[in-house]
């Protein structure tokens, strides 16, 4: 166990790996996502993730609803009455007002974003796991060892992104492995491989961060003022994500926490409070005996 908070350059090294490959990750550029869900399907196929419910939600084209034990990639769909950058939807026709209402209904944008486990630099799930089932791989990713997990469920509410979850009939927890098997073999993860627009990009994290910085600048130049990176900052509450994003709106619009942090950061303070409380308990009961002698009760 190394550092529990703050910037950390060599995550795998900090976890005890020597001569390890560079930290690998995802850059998910939601601005080019077309919502085809190829990533969801590829992930399920490759990782043999069971069916996650066939429900109709009414949430735009999203019937998967969110990440979970049986959903390791989740495509969010958000319909907004807002223009995209400086876009004009091109629904005005000379002379004739073909789509009578089109004028006022023109401003529509449809955001799509493929969510995934963030493979945090300081991963709360890993920190709190009492069995050592969750571990840091040589690629700097966070993976569950299913033969160790005893289904205590601690990692589930610990994750600040609501990623990892328990499979009920199985008892253990499951989440994205960043295709540990594939990347160990030099292949890219199934979702990135399947993504037809390169919205999901896989590679060494340093490279991805550079590319992302360029991309967001390019979008700003193109007038897409809302474009922003999410999870790219090694200085944020989780020390930066191994899987980070380019978003076109506030994180919470996509169901992401705006300023997540690893609660282990506060653990020293928590233990101090716990210890003082324990002493208070002893002191309180000692006082009760002191008082108890006076108010009677000795045989």
């Amino acid at each position, binding site marked *: 166990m190394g550092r529990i908070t703050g910037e950390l350059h060599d995550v795998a090294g900090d976890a005890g790996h020597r001569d390890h490959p560079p930290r690998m990750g995802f850059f998910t550029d939601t601005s080019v996502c077309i919502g085809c869900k190829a990533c969801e399907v590829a992930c399920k196929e490759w990782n043999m993730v069971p069916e996650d419910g066939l429900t109709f939600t009414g949430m735009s084209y999203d019937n998967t609803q969110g990440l979970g034990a049986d959903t390791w990639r989740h495509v*969010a769909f958000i319909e907004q009455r807002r223009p995209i950058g400086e876009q004009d939807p091109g629904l005005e026709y000379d002379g004739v007002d073909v789509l009578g209402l089109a004028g006022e209904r023109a401003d529509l944008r449809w955001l799509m974003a493929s969510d995934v486990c963030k493979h945090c630099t300081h991963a709360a799930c890993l920190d709190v796991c009492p069995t*050592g089932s969750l571990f840091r791989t040589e690629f700097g990713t966070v993976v569950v060892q299913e033969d160790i997990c*005893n289904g205590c469920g601690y990692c589930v509410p610990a994750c600040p992104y609501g990623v990892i979850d328990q499979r009920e009939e199985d008892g253990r927890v499951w989440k994205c492995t960043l295709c540990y098997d594939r990347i160990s073999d030099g292949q890219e993860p199934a979702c990135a491989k399947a993504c037809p627009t390169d919205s999901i990009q896989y590679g060494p994290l340093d490279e991805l961060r550079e590319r992302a910085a360029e991309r967001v600048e*390019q979008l700003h130049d193109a007038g897409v003022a809302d474009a922003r990176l999410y999870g790219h900052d090694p200085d944020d509450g989780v020390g930066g994500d191994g899987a980070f994003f380019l978003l076109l709106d506030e994180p919470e619009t996509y169901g992401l926490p705006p300023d997540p942090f690893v609660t282990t950061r506060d653990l*020293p303070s928590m233990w101090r409070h716990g210890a003082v409380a324990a002493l208070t*308990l002893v002191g309180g009961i000692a006082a*009760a*005996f002191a008082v108890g002698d006076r108010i009677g009760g000795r045989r």
Partner: protein
Amino acid sequence: MSEAQVTRAGERNQRPGREASPGEQGGRRRGGTRERSMVPRAEFGSYYGRPIIKEPTWSARDIAGYLFLGGLAGASSVMAAGAQLTGRPALARAGKVGGLTAIGLSTGLLIHDLGRPERFYNMLRVFKPTSPMSMGSWILAMYGPAAGLAAVTDVTGWFPRTGRAATGWAALTGPAVASYTAVLISDTAVPAWHGAYRELPFLFAGSATAAAGGLGLLAAPTGQTGPARAAAVLGAATELTVNAKMRRALGRTAEVYRSGRPARLSRVAQVLTVGGAVTAALAGRRHRAVAAASGLALLAGSACTRFAVFEAGRASAADPVYTVAAQRGAGGGRPGSDVP
């Protein structure tokens, strides 16, 4: 990825692929983004109102029950040691037997709640300071056997020396059993728990003290329960004060205590705890039956307190607004920059 067509005349319809600008196929509107509302939104956005973090998968009976019984066990062991030192054998026995029963039951609940109960021993294969559950397993491992020895030697009368040592050891480790559970639940992203990490250990300590007092009142003759009555009053007062403080610290997240199950449970908890403590203080000395009833009320009140905290955590996880508000600095719960 690129849907360009390759024809005999060369490449056609080349698209920009990952360099595409959203909306560039449409025309350009001059003057920039029109819709940038300057009016601050009163509410935060969310993804169809879905929770951001996952609700704990723990069952209320198992884990809230564990929080209660762990507290009862830990505080009872301290009571038992005090009673032994001050010559109150019945009160001591109540604490020892109560401690063993409570820790036995609570360990059972804990194991029952695992998705793979047969693998519970995996917790004892690592020692991991960043995991309060790992540390808790070791605290339990240090406390449990001592609590057992203390109770068995007391009841059988065998090995009195060992019994005294075990009683002392259980009293030393018991308080950790009672308060570490607060650290356990605070070290999660659950707004009502993590946001109250400074108060929860004291709330639990107060609640455990009241419960141990209640157990003494229930099981020991009135002649020996002076300290139990005092503990009940002290514990209840602590619980009330810390509870109020916790709600202030939680800011907006404290809303979860004002409706639904958490509200009902914490109201019942308060009535039982205050009622039990007051009754014990006023009449617990003279009437055995009244003392026993107040003891029961205190025990039930302590249990309700833990269930209220548990349910409040669930409710705060289920509504994304609490996660966002706390992180946007509008919900109490100590946002972003609070590094100890």
